[in-house]
């Protein structure tokens, strides 16, 4: 059966093939998936969320709750696309959702034949034993929307930025009138229309504007807007936004998910997003064949599709009659128009009824559709007068077109604290007061007559332009005449008993019925936001477009309150489904974070360095020599440093030059350790604190000249430390003579450690460096050149061995590194570095957790010699000196060989509940021949020799440990000073 009646205004003759659930179907250029399927006679298009009931198309727009499909396959698969929104293209692959094994036969739909329908909260109340988690995976598989793609779509999305004076969302009559008004004043306008063409209902409403037919006027007006530098974007939906940044998505035809993401910065925003027609509640109002009146008109006018052969129209306003006339003219046999209004309130359509009766269409006033009949789709309706004890009669039909009025689309007016108020004359909610940069107009304001809609749009556009300082030569609003006022009547659901309420659907997408609303009230959830969460009314992709107002009105009826008091729950952006990929934009894959590379990274990469991201840096964890694991390789490298020597790439250290007459004083304030006492050409280990007295970072300060210091920071804290320095330069010590320059990337750092380091450096650096290499004592440094580039040689050690840091210009980093390697110093990575530091009790990182003071970390001597600095005052708080404060200690296994890992909790052997501390770092030490660790342990437990239990329930181990000094190796430090 072919339902294509005539050529729709959007169609062209060109046809192509696409695939739906594995079948090849043809469509015409201009078809949406919904119209193409309707044209082929498809009725069943989806299964409902909870009960798996058969569902057909309800709407012709993005608000479609039933007919959601998955488009594409593999990484390009996009789930939950409303089929009326999906413009078809040749070769598109589309699958229906939420059914198994097939759309026509779905096993889980048997759920609805149980004793009762599953009421609100059913799952959570029923699946309690043994636990919800036991059932959750199965239930999630049954109830749900389309699956997310498993593979990663690598194609980068298209992100564009737009600036304009006035942004208008919606290209219906109100939006176009607003755009015209604003652009005539000289304002730069951007108009976004969600649909593939502007005009809204002017495409099917019998209307004239300024003496022309509606769509002719729209085309002329848009041409004028574009002539005045305005931009008109079709298939572009405004999906959300805040003050200053509105986000819109442009659907690209034929490439699902390849949307263009617009970031629009308008100075004024006008939301002219129209209204959404809503159904009325009657029994089995979700059966395939029930559709909104607007949708039927849209499919007929735009794609020339008759939505059925024999239709009954049911509603509560005058527009039913105009629609019946147009549908009948288009080839739909209209069996009856059922107007629920009492005779006294429907006199305005007396003439329309007479005209329809003249062409043989029955009109019933004061009647309601009680239920639909049929098995797989609508075969008829039961109709009765609303008089008491009225006779029920059956009207045969295959389509029920229902209209319960229109809910203004106020979503855009609700963000940033927007409110809504009930508008009785519109039977809907209007947005409350708007911020100065935003306005709503047209049907979104509850105005449904074309003339008034145009005037409201014009007013909004003109007002926006005037408020921006633009002015008009002449400002005349377009004059239009369309369908007359609908004369709405507040009516929401057909009469029924309690059992019928289980089949009166309010929210189609979430299977919420009148019975669910009643149950929610019975169980004490009376606030609309609670009802939403308890029943799921208005969640999901349609965000209550269909069910919000209907639900609020029925709640009002059930609870005897006023709809205005019940209110509307807050609909959240996005206003339509958006793929995560689009939101991520360019911040994905390799572009997620920049990668920082040291001057030596290329060498590491080509010499077996196992590079791993650490912060933004790529650093070598160890150097692969024959496939041993990281831990063994680290042990080997660490042992080699102690036996002979090794080199390490320390270029990632933060390095700042602090210069000026007040530099020394500034650093004294920034660090617990005094910088002003450092002599020129000497350096010092430095510790600094946060304002609350906790240790922030440690590093070295080199005094290059009386007024010039180079301070280093740990790799991980470099960015934070620079901001920290700059903050105090600009606040507490503003006006002092000090400048701070980040020179981190101007110097590569090669750490050269081990007993052989001195003689190797003598050989590699050459003649001029032999004297300083012999002369320098611990923490001294010398400056010079190597191969014509600046080189600074610092004697400092973080491995406990004789060691030097070479700060050199990046261009000589690789030659210098290679020369050292050629002279017998092999590189070591982070793994070995951490072992070497741990053996000497130097902080690794986990100890600087933002909760430890210098006293906790055993820096008592530094504190005594310290000076007033940031954080010093709060460090003296009594609580930070209690006996249960953590203290840094070393730990080793009592048996001298057991393994233990960081994270294990330390308790006394008798204690099972309270932890006295925990292990912060641990590793196998090749120098000690056993596992060693650092721990933060309550001070009263921290005497050396104390035996504790390390409990590691996550890994299922318990180890007896004894407390030692944090310095596990060479406690007197003789190797370092050699």
């Amino acid at each position, binding site marked *: 059966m072919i339902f294509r009646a005539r050529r729709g205004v959007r169609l062209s003759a060109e046809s192509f093939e696409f695939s739906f659930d594995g079948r090849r179907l043809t469509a015409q250029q201009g078809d949406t998936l919904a119209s193409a399927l309707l044209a082929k006679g498809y009725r069943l298009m989806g299964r409902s969320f909870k009960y798996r009931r058969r569902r057909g198309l309800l709407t012709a727009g993005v608000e479609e709750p039933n007919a959601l499909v998955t488009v594409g396959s593999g990484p390009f698969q996009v789930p939950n696309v409303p089929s009326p929104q999906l413009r078809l293209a040749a070769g598109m692959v589309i699958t229906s959702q939420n059914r198994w094994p097939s759309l026509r036969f779905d096993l889980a739909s048997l759920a609805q034949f149980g004793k009762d329908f599953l009421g609100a909260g059913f799952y959570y109340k029923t699946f309690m034993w043994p636990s919800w988690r036991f059932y959750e995976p199965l239930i999630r598989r049954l109830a749900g929307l389309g699956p997310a793609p498993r593979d990663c779509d690598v194609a980068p999305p298209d992100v564009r930025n737009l600036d304009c004076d006035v942004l208008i969302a919606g290209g219906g009559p109100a939006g176009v009138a607003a755009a015209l008004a604003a652009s005539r004043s000289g304002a730069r306008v951007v108009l976004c229309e969600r649909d593939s063409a502007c005009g809204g209902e002017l495409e099917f409403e019998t209307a004239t504007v300024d003496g022309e037919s509606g769509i002719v006027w729209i085309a002329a007006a848009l041409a004028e807007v574009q002539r005045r530098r305005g931009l008109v974007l079709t298939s572009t939906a405004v999906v959300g936004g805040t003050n*200053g940044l509105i986000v819109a998505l442009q659907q690209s035809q034929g490439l699902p998910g390849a949307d263009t993401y617009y970031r629009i*910065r308008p100075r004024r925003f006008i939301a002219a997003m129209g209204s959404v027609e809503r159904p009325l509640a009657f029994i089995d109002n979700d059966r395939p064949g029930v559709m909104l009146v607007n949708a039927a008109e849209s499919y007929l006018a735009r794609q020339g599709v008759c939505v059925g052969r024999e239709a009954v129209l049911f509603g509560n306003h005058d527009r039913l009659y105009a629609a019946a006339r147009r549908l009948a003219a288009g080839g739909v046999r209209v069996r009856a128009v059922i107007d629920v209004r009492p005779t006294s309130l429907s006199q305005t359509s007396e003439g329309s009824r007479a005209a329809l009766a003249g062409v043989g269409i029955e009109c019933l006033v004061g009647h309601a559709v009680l239920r639909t009949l049929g098995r797989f789709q609508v075969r008829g309706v039961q109709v009765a007068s609303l008089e008491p004890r009225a006779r029920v009669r059956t009207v045969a039909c295959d389509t029920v077109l229902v209209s319960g009025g229109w809910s203004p689309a106020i979503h855009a007016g609700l963000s940033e604290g927007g409110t809504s108020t009930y508008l009785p004359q519109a039977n809907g909610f209007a947005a409350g007061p708007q911020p100065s940069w935003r306005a709503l107009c047209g049907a979104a304001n509850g105005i449904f007559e074309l003339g008034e809609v145009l005037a409201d749009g014009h007013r909004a556009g003109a007002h926006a332009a005037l408020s921006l300082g633009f002015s008009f030569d002449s400002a005349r609003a377009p004059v239009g005449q369309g369908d007359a006022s609908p004369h709405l009547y507040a009516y929401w659901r057909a009469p029924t008993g309690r059992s019928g309420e289980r089949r009166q659907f309010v929210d189609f997408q979430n299977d919420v019925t009148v019975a669910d609303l009643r149950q929610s009230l019975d169980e004490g959830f009376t606030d609309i936001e609670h009802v939403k969460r308890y029943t799921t009314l208005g969640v999901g992709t349609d965000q209550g477009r269909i069910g919000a107002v209907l639900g609020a009105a029925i709640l009002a009826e059930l609870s005897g309150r006023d709809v205005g008091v019940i209110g509307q729950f807050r609909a959240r952006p996005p206003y339509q489904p958006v793929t995560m990929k689009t939101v991520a934009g360019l911040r994905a894959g390799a572009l997620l974070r920049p990668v920082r590379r040291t001057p030596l990274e290329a060498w590491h990469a080509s010499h077996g360095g196992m590079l791993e991201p650490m912060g933004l840096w790529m650093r070598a964890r160890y150097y692969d020599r024959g496939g041993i694991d990281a831990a063994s390789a680290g042990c080997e490298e660490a042992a080699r440093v102690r036996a002979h020597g090794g080199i390490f790439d320390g270029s990632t250290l933060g390095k700042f030059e602090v210069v000026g007459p007040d530099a020394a004083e500034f650093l004294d304030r920034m660090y617990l350790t005094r910088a002003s006492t450092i002599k020129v050409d000497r350096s010092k280990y430095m510790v600094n604190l946060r304002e609350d007295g906790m240790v922030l970072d440690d590093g070295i300060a080199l005094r290059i000249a009386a007024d010039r210091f180079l301070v280093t920071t740990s790799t991980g804290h470099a960015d934070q430390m620079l*901001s920290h320095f700059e*903050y105090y330069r*600009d*606040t507490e010590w503003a006006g002092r003579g000090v400048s701070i320059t980040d020179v981190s990337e101007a110097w590569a750092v090669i750490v050269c450690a081990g007993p052989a380091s001195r003689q190797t450096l003598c050989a590699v650096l050459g003649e001029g460096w032999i004297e300083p290499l012999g002369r320098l004592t611990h923490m001294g440094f010398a400056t010079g050149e190597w191969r014509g580039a600046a080189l600074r040689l610092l004697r400092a050690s973080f491995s406990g061995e004789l060691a030097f840091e070479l700060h050199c210009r990046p261009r000589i980093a690789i030659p210098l590194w290679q020369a050292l390697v050629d002279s017998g110093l092999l590189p070591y990575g982070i793994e070995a570095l951490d072992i070497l530091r741990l053996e000497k009790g130097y902080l690794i990182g986990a100890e600087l957790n933002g909760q430890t003071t210098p006293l906790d970390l055993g820096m008592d001597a530094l504190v005594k010699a310290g000076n007033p600095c940031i954080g010093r005052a*709060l460090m003296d708080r009594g609580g930070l000196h209690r006996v249960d404060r953590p203290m840094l200690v070393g730990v080793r296994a009592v048996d001298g060989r057991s393994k233990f890992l960081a994270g294990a909790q330390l308790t006394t052997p008798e204690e099972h509940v309270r932890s006295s501390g925990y292990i912060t770092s641990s590793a196998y030490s090749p120098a000690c021949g056993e596992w060693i660790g650092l721990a933060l342990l309550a001070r009263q437990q921290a005497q050396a020799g104390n035996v504790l239990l390390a409990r590691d329930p996550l890994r299922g181990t318990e180890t007896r440990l004894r407390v030692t000094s944090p310095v596990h190796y060479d406690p007197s430090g003789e190797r370092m000073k050699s």
Partner: protein
Amino acid sequence: MNRLTCPFCGARELEEFLFHKTLAEPGSSPYADTYERVSRMEESLEHWQHVSGCRAWLRVRRNPSTNDVQEVRCLGSPEDP
């Protein structure tokens, strides 16, 4: 508030800036200065850094309920108290 107007760089994307803190009441103790944060509907005084731009530290006065930025000043300029 998706942009801040840096006194040096002009109006820039918010993601270039780093929020540091809301300022405590003037003249409070070091303890209050460190731990207490003032949260007012009408006006909030905050420190931000133009961290991915000129790195200036800024004092931002804004209305948290409307997101209107009333003033962005550079910290550390000689006239700054």
